[in-house]
């Protein structure tokens, strides 16, 4: 399979779209409540922080 410029653009845009949807679902499952992320948020494996 030939990996061209257009394919990479499509792939990256798909990643971004899917990522936005998944993170929206994640945030929605918290009930759109930032306080739900407060627990253990300084653990080394946590990337999402809300100060």
């Amino acid at each position: 399979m030939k990996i061209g410029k257009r394919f990479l653009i499509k792939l990256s845009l798909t990643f971004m779209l899917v990522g936005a949807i998944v993170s929206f679902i994640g945030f929605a499952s918290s009930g759109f409540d930032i306080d739900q992320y407060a627990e253990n948020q300084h653990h080394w494996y946590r990337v999402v922080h809300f100060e």
Partner: protein
Amino acid sequence: MNRIEFIKTLSSKLSYVMKPEEVRELVDYYDEMILDLMEEGMSEEKAVSQLDSPESIIESIKGTPLEFKFPIRKKVSPLWMVLLIAGFPLWGSLALAGIMIVMSIYILIWCIPFLAGSLAFAGVLGGLVSVVLSPLATFDGLHIGLTQFGIGLFLFGAGILFTMLTLSMSKTFIAYSQSMTNKIKKILFNQRSVVSI
């Protein structure tokens, strides 16, 4: 006419219209042509007859312009030397300021691809770390793991996009920098050493 006769006639006639080194170059050229034809199987006389006669060669050369190399005079007078040394604080600082301006232009130009490259690196690395660590974050809550995974995917996609942007921009910026460097070199070191008449 054999090869030696041809070369003798040609060089004696050329010596009236050309400089000795130019005569030698041209005679060598015709001699090589004769030898090549002889290597292909022709006899010496046949090979010579394939070329133009010495007279017609002279006629064809008469119209063409000749190049003479004049050495550039690089003699600097003592007065100039004194002025250069005494004026160094002035011209030296001006030259340094000029170099700094050129350097800052280069740095300013390359800030754009550097910024895009930094975003690409941060996006790809941050995205990968975020996705890989999201299962661990799930232990703190499913919503946390999902959010982290989604943000990781988004960052990774943005990182790829910025990587491509950096690569395509770098090509343009390299070409621009090369042309700018060539222009500066041309302005600073352009000297004529060959004069056509």
